[in-house]
């Protein structure tokens, strides 16, 4: 009778089986890539770099705060006193807070990178499945691109940490102002025009 009439059905079945197999293989490959040790290592290294950046910044700030406090105490004659201990306790407290904040920021930045990877993974799986279906993948690819580009906008990865020891600046400034005030009056002694406040310990060079 000139052949059967089920070759289209067979071809469609074969095509569908192939499509499913390809989509399954692609999904598995994509998951494998994004869950690989290599990706985890990339994110771990990113976290480590972020952590070191913040820590270096914080340590520099602490070094400056230590020096400022040391000189402020010395200027005020409070070195070795309870005020000295309290000021250093403040530094320790601020430093600890800064450490936690730095760690949070570093982990937050790493999480954003990881989330971008997961978003890219899901978009690519969706694209692969739709693309193998010979339907449009364009919109999703643009979404994927948008997701990856928005990563560039995230600032948390490289923003410096704020001045952790800002609360101590006030103390340092006051000691500086006191120093300047002393300088102004110190050398006024003996001058006809300069004011004298009568404090001989302050106004007489070499007098202790």
């Amino acid at each position, binding site marked *: 009778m000139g*052949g059967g009439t089920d*070759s289209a059905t067979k071809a469609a079945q074969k095509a569908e089986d192939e499509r499913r197999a390809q989509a399954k293989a692609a999904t598995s490959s994509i998951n494998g*890539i994004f869950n690989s040790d290599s990706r985890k290592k990339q994110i771990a290294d990113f976290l480590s770099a972020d952590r070191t950046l913040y820590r270096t910044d914080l340590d520099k700030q602490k070094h400056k705060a230590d020096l400022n406090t040391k000189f402020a105490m010395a200027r005020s004659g409070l070195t070795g006193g309870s005020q000295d201990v309290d000021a250093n306790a403040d530094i320790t407290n601020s430093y600890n807070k800064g450490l936690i904040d730095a760690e949070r920021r570093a982990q937050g930045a790493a999480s954003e990178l990881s989330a971008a990877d997961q978003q890219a993974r899901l978009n690519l799986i969706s*694209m692969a499945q739709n*693309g193998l279906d010979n339907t449009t993948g364009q919109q999703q690819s643009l979404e*994927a691109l948008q997701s990856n580009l928005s990563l560039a906008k995230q600032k948390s990865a490289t923003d410096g940490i704020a001045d952790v020891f800002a609360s101590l600046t006030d103390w340092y400034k006051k000691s500086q102002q006191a120093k300047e005030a002393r300088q102004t009056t110190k050398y006024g002694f003996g001058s006809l025009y300069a004011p004298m406040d009568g404090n001989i310990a302050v106004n007489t060079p070499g007098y202790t």
Partner: protein
Amino acid sequence: MIGLIVALAAAAAQQYQAHQVAVKQDKTAAQGIKQQSALRQESNSALQQRLLKLQQSNPDDAITQKKTGYLDQLQRARMVANQGLQQNSGYSDAYNSYADTVTNRENTSGTDLADLMSRIDGPTAQRQAEGFDTADLGTQFEDVARKSQGAGFLTKLKVNGIHSNPWLGLLTEAAGSWGSNYAGRNAPGGP
């Protein structure tokens, strides 16, 4: 008897013709499906290439590129950066020695910072590049989808265009009618 044979032959011919049409339509549809499969292979090939590239993707090149840029910038600005730490013959040896130590320390600090920033910016740049590649894959999919739509439309036109031969249909119908009439007229007890 002759009328019956002619009527049966006409019916068989009609049936045969209908079957031939169905077979042709089936073959054309199957051909269209195979064509779609070939297009899907094209998409799959693009996808496999993309996945291979993604598998090999790492931030090393981006890190190196960023770091080179940062270090170049530091190198160009080094004179300006270290202006306040220059050796001065009018100052004490202790000052000059300390200034030297600090200069080296700060230069190392700049290099370390370049290293850290490139390790932070590198993976971000890598992912941006991956995003561009994925968008490119989407464009390739879109191209295949257009071809697929065009091929599907043509297949539909081809399938719809397959009809039985009208002259042959007319002939078999006429023969069938004649055979039926003839058989009716010559049947026992007929007119």
